[in-house]
Structures are given as C-alpha cells and as structure tokens.
C-alpha cells in the first residue's frame, strides 16, 4: 500500500509538473510552513508567562 501524501515529506523535493498529487502535497506543506515559520506572537508568550506566574503564586500561597 502506498500513501502518496505521506511519501516524500521533504518540502524541497522537486515535484514533477504532471503529478497532481505531488503538486497538492507540496502546496499544502508550503501553505502550512508559511505560518509555522512565523515567530510566535507576543500574545502567546505573554499568556504563558501569566499562566505560569499565577500558578506559581497559588502554589506558594498553599505552601504558606
């Protein structure tokens, strides 16, 4: 059994122009990577810091 989509995960792999599945796989990954390669927005870094800080504070409250 062959999984055409899963085959050849390397984004840089050249795709024959006459292979529609290859083109689809390549474009799907290109679209995905265009977002994945963005820097993590500050809103998420700040959010995780806040969640962490709240948790640490409540833990130290329990300890006292």
């Amino acid at each position, binding site marked *: 059994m062959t999984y*055409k989509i899963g085959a050849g995960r390397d984004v840089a792999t050249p795709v024959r122009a006459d292979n529609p599945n290859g083109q689809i796989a390549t474009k*799907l990954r290109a679209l*995905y990577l265009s977002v994945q390669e963005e820097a*993590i*927005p500050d809103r998420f870094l700040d959010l*995780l810091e806040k969640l962490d800080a709240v948790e640490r504070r409540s833990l130290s409250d329990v*300890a006292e």
Partner: protein
Amino acid sequence: MSGGMTSEESSFKREMLAALPSLRAFAMSLIGRHDRADDLVQDTIMKAWAKQDHFEMGTNMKAWLFTILRNELYSQMRKRGREVQDSDGYFTEALAQHPSQYGSLDLQDFKRALEMLPPDQREAIILVGASGFSYEEAAEICGCALGTIKSRVNRARQRLQDILQVTGESEYGPDATSAPIISRSFVS
C-alpha cells in the same frame, strides 16, 4: 515547596512553546484567517493549561494540543452555527494582512481550494500531509477509525485535484467570493 514540581511546570510550558508554531499553522490551515486562528490557539492554550494534570510528560504534546484545538474548534462551531466556516472576506483579509506570505497566486488558489473541502476532509489531509502525523495519530486526534482517515485523505486529495483543475483554467472562476459557494453546492 518542591523544586521538582517547579521544573516539571516549566518543562510543560517549554514543550507547549515548542509545539506552538505547528499548532498555529494547523489552526490557520483549518480556519484560513489569522485573527480567528490565533484566537483559537489562545483558547487551546488556556484549555490545555487547565488540563495539564491530564498530560503525561514524555508523551506526544503536539498530538495532545492538536486534539484539544480540534475539539475546541468544533465545539465553537456548534455554538456559533456555521460562522467559523464562513469564507466571506477570507482572502481579502489574508491578502490585506499578509501580502508577502501569500504573494504566490498559486498558493492563494490552493488556499481557496482547501477552504472548499468539507471540514473532516480538510483536517485529515492537513494532519497527514502537512503536520507530519501518521494515519494512526491522525485517527486518534480526530477520534475516528484508521480507515476513515485514509478515506478522508483520499477524498480530500481527489477533490483538491478537481477544484484546482477547474479554478486553474478560469483563474478566479465566476468571481472570488461566489466561486467557493458555487463549488460547495456541487460537492456536498
């Protein structure tokens, strides 16, 4: 206070941070809009943080977060009706906010074609074809059988081929906003 607990917390946070770029890409691929995708990612982080006791360190954090995001998306869609799936203004928004990223017309066409897929097929092909999950992992994330995922991926691939051939010839189809609606009425 135990120092051990603190270091486990930070490693939970660290692993979550490591998975965030892919989680954002997943959300963006599913929804197509940066603002809504990032709102969904934020909701997912909050949910995951609240449930971190359920997560076993050393298991697949990425798959765990993807599962939470997916469940959150579908639960929000049920609450809001089909609003999340509404593609109105979809490309205008993407183009206005990120002109450099979607500079290739090719990729814009592909993005539009992806948006035309039924949600279950779209998520299946993204998970397997872009997120790097195995069929088994994708089935677990979607809470369905392995055969179901394989068939969804196959149908997604076939439908994308059909759509891209159609839209490739006429560039934009009838027009940018009505094309997805017309196609959808044929495919569902």
